[in-house]
């Protein structure tokens, strides 16, 4: 191995070998250092990248899903909450049944939306399902309260106490109690409750959605049928995407 070095002195050979070894070690160290820096940079970039990407992915708002159906636009004969129709950028129409448990579950979400957004009108339309015996009387109660300017107060009361009256054979007396609680003229309430005008109005609401609605509640966002959001955050983001401002 050292034949070419034969003519060098022992000391020189030794020195040469030492130099070579040092050079080899230095270049080896350098490579190792580069590899180490690359490895750890890669790990750091990977971890930070993953967190950033996942945060981006996860916070991506669910897109609005329309089911491809439309409904009669809201007008001033409807019950409107939030801001007046003419100022609204987004109009949310709900077809609902006071006796349906899902509607009661959505009630608090819809109420929150009416409160939270400053350019959204919320519209309530009756869709009393035939299997709910007290749904139509409840709708009449809300309308009768509406005659005295307290539709939404009665609406809230009916949903909040749904479990109390929905099982009753006749809930009329309970509704009278609610009217009294709300400070209504109970005699007038009773008359309006049975009036043909109110019954016709409820039926008109029902018919306006009959060919579009398979169940309650059904929501229409700017007259387009909506896939029911799964939770409040989804509901909120859908309305924001449609132009709702908080």
């Amino acid at each position, binding site marked *: 191995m050292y034949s070419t070095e034969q003519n060098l002195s022992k000391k020189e050979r030794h020195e040469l070998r030492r130099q070579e070894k040092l050079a080899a070690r230095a270049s*080896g160290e350098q490579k190792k250092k580069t590899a180490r820096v690359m*490895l750890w940079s890669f790990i750091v970039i990977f*971890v930070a990248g*993953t967190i950033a990407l996942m945060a981006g*992915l996860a916070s991506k708002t669910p897109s609005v899903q329309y089911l491809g159906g439309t409904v009669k636009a809201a007008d001033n004969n409807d019950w409107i909450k939030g801001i007046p129709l003419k100022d609204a950028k987004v109009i949310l129409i709900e077809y609902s049944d006071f006796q349906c448990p899902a509607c009661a579950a959505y009630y608090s979400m819809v109420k929150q939306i009416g409160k939270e957004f400053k350019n959204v009108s919320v519209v309530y339309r009756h869709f009393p399902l035939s299997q709910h015996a007290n749904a139509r009387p409840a709708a009449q109660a809300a309308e009768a309260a509406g005659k005295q300017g307290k539709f939404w107060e009665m609406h809230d009361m009916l949903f909040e106490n749904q479990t109390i009256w929905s099982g009753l054979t006749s809930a009329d007396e309970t509704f009278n109690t609610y009217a009294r609680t709300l400070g209504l003229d109970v005699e007038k309430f009773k008359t309006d409750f049975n009036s043909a005008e109110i019954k016709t109005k409820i039926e008109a609401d029902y018919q306006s959605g009959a060919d579009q609605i398979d169940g309650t509640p059904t929501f229409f966002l700017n007259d387009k049928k909506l896939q029911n959001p799964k939770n409040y*955050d*989804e509901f909120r983001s859908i309305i924001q995407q449609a132009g709702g401002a908080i």
Partner: protein
Amino acid sequence: MTNLEVSSNKPAAPSNWLFAFFPILGALGFVDATYLAVKHFLGTPIPCSILKGCDQVTNSPYSLIYGVPVALLGALYYLTILILAAIYIDSRKPSVLKFLACLTPFGFLASLWFVYLQIFIIKAICIYCMASATSSTILFILGMYYLKKQKIYPQITLEKIPD
């Protein structure tokens, strides 16, 4: 670096390529668990394309341990695996890989428990959670395999012969 040789006089050590799966699985598990953890903190629903039930599973009371989301613990576990694997690649110290291997039973047992919860208690399957269970199971198998090899070939790494 040419004068390398197995210092032990036992048969040649098994190839190390299999253990490349430690960082790979650690990385995959980390991506998966991070996704679930971020979802948990943002509260957005998890879309499940293949199996339904992600929301049910990740919103169940079992998704928290003393208020800490399981997904976050999972992400930290996989991050630990990944970092230990990287330290090993860097230092080549067998003790690091051994320590990593000793951690894998914890991930595996936790996965067993969560799969049990999903199937028998919550009765809903979350595909992302199952993916995590799969990677922690493979990590466990690899870890045990490594420990077994360690016993047979205590010096699995190559050592430089002193000059």
